[in-house]
């Protein structure tokens, strides 16, 4: 498993066998509170970095998720349809949101590493 990278919008991405696994950070889920619904993207959707790709809804509000990189959605986390609270309980594990085939891996270089992100959120 590769290093996890973070965006300033609190998305994370990590590469697993050349595919990027994307979700929101543990810090972000704490800020959002109880998540009751996740609107997942369509498999096959082509994204540019910064495109709105999913919506995460807490009791209080809806928050957009922006793709941290460009590429094509290859898989979505269907488990969230029945159990959106996985994003709260395991944001960076079972609470992943979609997988993306990256079109430009150099975009990862612009993102924060774990240590930078930790200081960014503290």
């Amino acid at each position, binding site marked *: 498993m590769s290093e996890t990278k973070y965006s300033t919008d609190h998305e994370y991405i990590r590469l697993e066998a050349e595919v990027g696994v994307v979700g929101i950070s543990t810090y972000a889920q704490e800020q959002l509170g109880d998540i*009751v619904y996740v609107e997942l993207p369509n498999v096959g959707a082509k994204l540019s970095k910064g495109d709105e790709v999913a919506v995460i809804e807490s009791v209080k509000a*809806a928050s957009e998720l922006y793709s941290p990189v460009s590429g094509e959605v290859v898989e979505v986390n269907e488990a969230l349809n029945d159990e959106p609270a996985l994003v709260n309980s395991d944001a960076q594990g079972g609470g992943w949101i979609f997988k993306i085939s990256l079109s430009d891996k150099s975009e990862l270089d612009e993102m924060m590493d774990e240590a930078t992100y930790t200081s960014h959120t503290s």
Partner: protein
Amino acid sequence: MSKPEENIKQTSLYNLHIANGGRMVDFCGYSLPIQYSGIVKEHIHTRNSASLFDVSHMGQIIITGGDFVSMAKALEVLIPADILSLKPSEMRYSVLLNEGGGIIDDLIITRDAKDLAIFIVVNAATKENDFAILQKGLAGDFDIKLEMGKSLIALQGPKAAQVIKKYSSIANELVFMTSGYANIAGFETYISRSGYTGEDGFEISVADEDALELAKILLENEDVEFAGLGARDSLRLEAGLCLYGHDMNEEIDPISASIIFAIGKRRREEGGFVGFEKISSILANGVEQKRVGVIFDGRMPVREGAEIVDEQGQKIGHVTSGSFSPILEKPIAFAYVPKTLSKIGNSVIAIVRGKQVLGTIVKMPFIAQNYLRSH
């Protein structure tokens, strides 16, 4: 990016909110907790046990300087409730109306248990305006003041009464929408059996200097936890209760808002209040739109501002409050729809992010109210 916080008021419980992990937000000019541990947890705790809410931002208005009948008569010109029929200690929900029958605010009127005053609790955002209207209407005949030295804390939930009973026998006397003076844990309070959650519970008016200690003592009970504004909003939505500025405003009359009970039966016949002409005509001719409760399919919340459309996609209404019900585990909402389509069981279509969501009109409240109406 955030504005200087110098104009944001702190309640007497501010430090206690911080100490309990309250996530503070600016709400109507007050720094108040949106949540502590989490909205859903606080919501469910309120339904199962007892939660403490700081509602000190609400306006507490006190009218004195006359006998009850003369004060009530003066108020009935401004407020369409049957105020004259209140017995000492009794409370009633009502509204302030404009000439067009639109709602300026909703409020609760209480006839003082000692019969020395009439108390009115109003919304935070509207309290200055309400006070000005009432002051003008009472025209110097009585004394009216907007209380500045009192906090208001609500203890809500099925275990609220057993908590209050530990400190005062008044919980054995009060039923829903009655009130009285009580010494609670050494502090002089004015306590009512009322609230905004659909549960049995109390609202306690207490001097600012005593509020912090009283809250701490109540929180020492293992059944009592703090709950914030987020849970307050989701609880009132499940309970079918309107939120001013969202579900009602100056363009909406009480009949359309499905709160006709805010207008006393005697008053509907006799009139004599601001807005009566319009209300009378609405009562005779019916309303065009009506607030209804809707449960939506799936899990996606349908929130304030979402359009309601017909099968051709034409806008026919809109959602004024909506969220995900932690108890029903379904999206619930209040929506205004044409009266002709407002029947229980009818289907409605809402648009969320360009997509259609199907819902069904249901009877409100969404969950049974749990008020104590007799001992």
